[in-house]
């Protein structure tokens, strides 16, 4: 059972890391435009590069 001495603090720490990542993402504006970037990736702009 001694494993919980590392497991519980470890999981809590991991949770904190995810929380910090989420705050960072929100502040960076990553949630501001959910549609635009989703479709931007599908636009092929390499027509002139094609043989």
């Amino acid at each position: 059972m001694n494993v919980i001495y590392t497991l519980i603090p470890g999981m809590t720490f991991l949770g904190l890391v995810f929380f910090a990542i989420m705050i960072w993402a929100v502040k960076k504006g990553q949630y501001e435009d959910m549609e635009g970037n989703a479709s931007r990736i599908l636009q092929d702009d390499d027509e002139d590069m094609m043989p």
Partner: protein
Amino acid sequence: MNQYSSPCSSGCFHCGLPIAAGVNYLASLEGAERNFCCLGCQSVCAAIFEAGLQSYYQRTPEGVLLAPPPEPPKDIEIYDFDEVQQEFITCSGDLRDIHLLVEGVHCAACVWLIERRLQREPGVQLANVNLAAKRIHLRWDSSRNKLSNLIRVLARIGYSAVPYDPENAEGVIQKANRSMLFRLFFAGFAMMNLIWISIALYSGANKGEFREFFHWMGFALATPTLLYAGYPFYRGAVGGLRVWQLTMDLPIAIGLSVTYAYSTYITVTANKVGEVYFDTVTNLIFVILIGRYLEGMFRHQALSATNRLMELQPRVATVINEGKEQIIPIRGVKLGDHVLIKPGYKVPVDGIVLEGHSTVDESMLSGESVPVNKSSGAKVFSGTVNANGALLVEVSSTLQNTTLAKIIRLVEEAQSSKAPIQRLADTIVPWFVLVTLMCATLTFLIWNTESFEIALMAATSVLIITCPCALGMATPMSIAVASGLGAKHGILVKNGLVLETLSKVTHFVFDKTGTLTEGKMSVAKMHTAQNIAGKDVLCSAAAVERYSEHGTAKAIIAEAEAHHLNYRDTIVLGFHATAGLGVQANVNGETVLLGSAEWLIRNGITLNAGLQAQAHELEAQAMSCVYCALGNVHVAVLALADKLRDDAQQLVNELRAASIGMTLLSGDRKAVAEAIAQQLGGMEVIAEVLPQDKDRVIQRLQQDGKVVAMVGDGVNDAPALIRADVGIALGSGTDVSVESADIVLMHNGLDKVRLATLLSRRTLLTIKQNIGLSFVYNAIMVPLAMMAKVNPLVAAITMPISSLVVIGNAARIRNLFKNEKS
């Protein structure tokens, strides 16, 4: 082969809307004939092909219907001035950053088109479209390209863009709300983790070898939660104490500190008997933060009213300098300059007319919707709108000294001097705090004779259990539910706190024009000479007025439309208008004259004595009369008046039945205001008032100890709306009045005032019930705590239950309007 998947083959090639019969906009693009629904679509499509970006049409997702391009924005040249740009750009120098709000963006293809097109312009370094918010983030080199040019490029491909300031639009309060949301998230995260640790402790770990480990884990999670998420409570409590006020934050802060300190003491001393309450600390913070967050969402954003007022002030003026027109920023205009005001533009300064004749819409200052005639020697005011003729004006005051600036100052003054709303819960809190502290002290003293350990535990549990969770949720939860219900029924509650105040209102003040009345002239009565059919007169009059721009014309045409008269099929020749007198034209070979009595006399027509007597009678009732002559014979008198709204009478009757005082406040002439009050069954009338007087009338009523609600719709009502205990604006009102008000009635339903009062009464009742519930909870739990019978498990179960009961009770408000149709 049709390689471009136009949304629908029979519709417009650009937007896909069906093409109306008889419309013919054809263009030959890459050898194929294309049909368009309008000129806008055609030119936009041509511009897209010209730029070689035609694959836009391939990128448009199947089934997405585009819309015809929106109107391009007007006067975009003013955005080239540094003074104007200063408000929007984030960095100075040649490289500039700006956010544009775009109209006409529908799908990902638009994003592609805009970004591609802008990046081709010289000097553009970054063009990033935010599809969800319909915004463009633009970075460009202002030495190489003008902003107005970029906006024009966007207009050519079918998008209308205007600069805006995201900082300003988002607002300080919204930012505060966001930081509150982060704290809420964090408290939620800590609470969920602590629940597992608590479950372990309750299920037996509090006796075994892991007891201390779990205590320290609780300590590790609760400490950052208390410091970060609980910070607003400590700040509020200290802020309250500084001004000698016991706020709701104080008992929360005391409860949190004591609970945390006691649990830490048990943890650090590795005490074998005591229990830790770390889960209670995080639970409390989480639940109360939910209440605070809800409260924050319904806070009134007071700053924006002044911002809206500033927007009314034009930023540039056309100055005549040595015979040349010159557009200069408003700050550069000096006293005595000659300024040209074109038709359709806003008056940029206060001044005196030198040349020209026009009508000016001064509704923002006077509240009167009928435009005022202006000719040389007349005064014009900044922010009003010049309707139909060019005016040359000599500047008499600018910027801070204009009438508009005075209103802005009034609004600011009203905002800063208005007493804060006293909430019911706030009045109870000081007593609550005192009683709690006394109970805790008493408990400690009594138990201390037996054992110090038990005394400490019992006194702490009194403080923990009384922590006003339910009391803190009582008001915000009720207001949140009531606001949601109001919004569903067309009552937009902008400042939730006034829901408590509205039920206590003892005096209503109404603006006249646009609030109790419809705010536009209509034909109220018509008297004709003998043997003349009213319909014929109306038909001929409408035929003439069709060519007039005057306010009277609209009323007469509307009346003819209402009677389904066929006035359009007449032949009208030689239309001629004389400003301030009347109009004249030849309808189907007969001369028709419409205007004042003097207008008819000047044209050599003798007035009909009977009709003239009737006209005098109508004028005594404050209606304005239009004389009408057909074939050089005076045949009719039309009386024009501003009609009452349909639901005004009902509202006034109900308020009178509830013995609530009423005052009619109007910038209009006394006789007109009196006539309206008479129609409504009489009330106190204060007429011919200026915006500052409206504010003063409200102040006077408040000094008499009355709780005042103001209902208004104009810019000139803004100071009064803010000053009043409850400001109610109509949805159709000016932006400024909507921003100044606490409650906005959508669809202009005056009867909604009654619903809002009902809603307010119910909200206050629910708040009282909730406070009662939290007292019942305390009456049960405090004696238990004083008997040292409360352990962490009991606290963890009962405290959320008390909050849930309060939330459930608040949710019952939703049933209020079940019998009202929405």
